[in-house]
């Protein structure tokens, strides 16, 4: 059965998929199993690069580039900045039983989730009807297709994301602002003072 599934693909494509899949799974396991958060973050980079390779393999070149730029370029660097800033890169016990039977429960949940998703994925749930987004192939370059759909069909969600990003930036600034003595006294500052005392 396995050879039957792989037979449809050419050899280079199969090799690319297998190598990228191994990289993705090993990186994900590394994120979970490494004791040091810095190592976890670097393993996350490995996983994200593997995902980007799989995107290229499936002719999603634009998303592969965005994946590398946004995730490995911005998100993981942000993670590393926070780790260094807070100095929390100390080791911890990975599999601590915080409450009784946590490991057993976690294992059961993991097995259930895996089998459920594989079961759902093994069945045919799609009708095959085309969506309003438009066809993917034979429409020109990948960037052209995505851009066309984004600026016509999905124009309103695209504009809403700009508001989301502005809100996120303002929220991050407000949350991480240090409340010193020279800062104006607000309700929040008083709450903070009460919280500390």
């Amino acid at each position, binding site marked *: 059965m396995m050879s039957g599934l792989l037979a449809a693909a050419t050899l280079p494509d199969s090799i*690319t998929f297998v190598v990228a899949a191994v990289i993705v799974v090993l990186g994900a396991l590394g994120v979970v199993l490494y004791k040091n958060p810095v190592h976890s973050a670097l393993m996350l980079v490995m996983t994200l690069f593997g995902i980007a390779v799989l995107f290229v393999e499936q002719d999603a070149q634009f998303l592969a580039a965005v994946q590398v730029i946004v995730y490995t370029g911005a998100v993981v660097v942000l993670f590393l900045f926070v780790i260094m800033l807070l100095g929390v890169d100390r080791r911890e016990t990975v599999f601590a039983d915080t409450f009784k039977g946590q490991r057993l*429960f976690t294992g059961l949940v993991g097995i259930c989730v895996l089998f459920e998703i594989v079961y759902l994925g093994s069945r045919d749930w799609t009708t095959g009807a085309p969506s309003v987004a438009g066809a993917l192939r034979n429409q020109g370059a990948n960037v052209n297709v995505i851009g066309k759909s984004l600026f016509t069909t999905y124009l309103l969600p695209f504009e809403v994301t700009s508001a989301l990003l502005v809100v996120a930036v303002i929220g991050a600034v407000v949350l991480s602002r240090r409340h010193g003595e020279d800062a104006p006294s607000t309700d929040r500052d008083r709450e903070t003072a009460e919280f500390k005392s």
Partner: protein
Amino acid sequence: MTVNVSWYLTLGAILFTIGAVGMLVRRNILVMFMCIELMLNAANLTFVSFSRVLNDVGGQISVFFVLIVAAAEVVVGLAIIVAIYRRRVGATADDQHLLKG
């Protein structure tokens, strides 16, 4: 022609499971955050796979929006983590038990 879509879906399922289990097992808040990213990437991989199979650009558009929302989520989440760490020195999620009944 790349490999059958079942392989991509299975890989996405495995990746999601690893992320979910890591989220439940780990106690460091930053690592829990990374596990959320793993689960988001599993969903993204599934989106792109279905986009290829169904010849529909909607899946790739969805991944684009997921990327944006994930970036915003990471920014706000890390700001909250920094604010928490500044007030108290607990390094794990178990130290945030102020609301414990």
